[in-house]
């Protein structure tokens, strides 16, 4: 099913928030666009962890559920 929008963007969710990004954007580019240092975060795409070494190769697809996490204070 091709649900790409006519303006060349796809619709995804990042940490629960809806976003529209250009089709073909890789996860590494997405992190950069969000101002995040890829070496300090971990990325999950549709419930699968994406190894950091492959973030530059994995493009986002329409409907993706992306989670980007890091370490915060906790007990």
């Amino acid at each position, binding site marked *: 099913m091709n649900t790409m929008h006519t303006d060349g963007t796809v619709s995804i969710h990042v*940490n629960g928030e809806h976003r529209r990004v250009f089709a073909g954007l890789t996860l590494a580019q997405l992190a950069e666009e969000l101002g*995040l240092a890829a070496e300090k975060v971990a990325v999950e795409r549709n419930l699968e962890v994406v190894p950091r070494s492959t973030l530059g190769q994995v493009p986002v697809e329409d409907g993706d559920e992306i989670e980007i996490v*890091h*370490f915060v*204070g*906790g*007990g």
Partner: protein
Amino acid sequence: MNIATPVTSAATEDTWTVAGKTFRSRLIVGTGKYKDFAQNAAALEASGAEIVTVAVRRVNVSDPKAPMLTDFIDPKKVTYLPNTAGCFTAEDAIRTLRLAREAGGWDLVKLEVLGEARTLYPDMVETLRATEILAKEGFKPMVYCVDDPIAAKRLEDVGAVAIMPLGAPIGSGLGIQNQVTIRLIVEGAKVPVLVDAGVGTASDSAVAMELGCDGVLMNTAIAEAKDPVMMARAMKLAVESGRLAYLAGRMGKRRYADPSSPLAGLI
């Protein structure tokens, strides 16, 4: 004539090892509830801890430049122990730790699967299930659990690298409620045992160590003290004192008095 031989530090080096990593400090501290990161880092310094627990949470996409824990506590100098706080099922905990492993690049983790929000008591059925799956995936889970010697054995059987029974509910500061079960767990375990949760003040830490625990893990007792940095130092000293007392072997208990001064030669 050599009267007193100074005890070398090598002779007294008392370390503990979990999943192949050796540590000198027997105190593990949390990184939650502090006023700010600077206070947290100062308390860590005063505690002498070599391991800190951390949580795994979504980055703030709307404010990516906000200060981060890693800017204040260097993961290259201090071992980050990612936890699964807030997870109520094995699946949630496993998902969290898979991400933690990717974020940090190491396998040593703290597993906690909670049963209910009110008591934050562990759900041992889910905890056992998660421990087994994580161990099979190559994780080294240090496991928060109930103070039940049989459950502790089961956890060890399925791959827990450390048993971490609660002394009292998380964040309660009530101290060790059942010294007998903690002692039974220590006696039965082949992996390190650390009291995790319930410590309120220094003497609670000393009690845990006197019972033979390998270490103590705490967050709130330090973070919610009026002076967290001073309390961190108190905890460091209490853990060391308790450990020394355990190693020294305490005197037996008597039901009545026994004089310390000789009775002979009394005028």
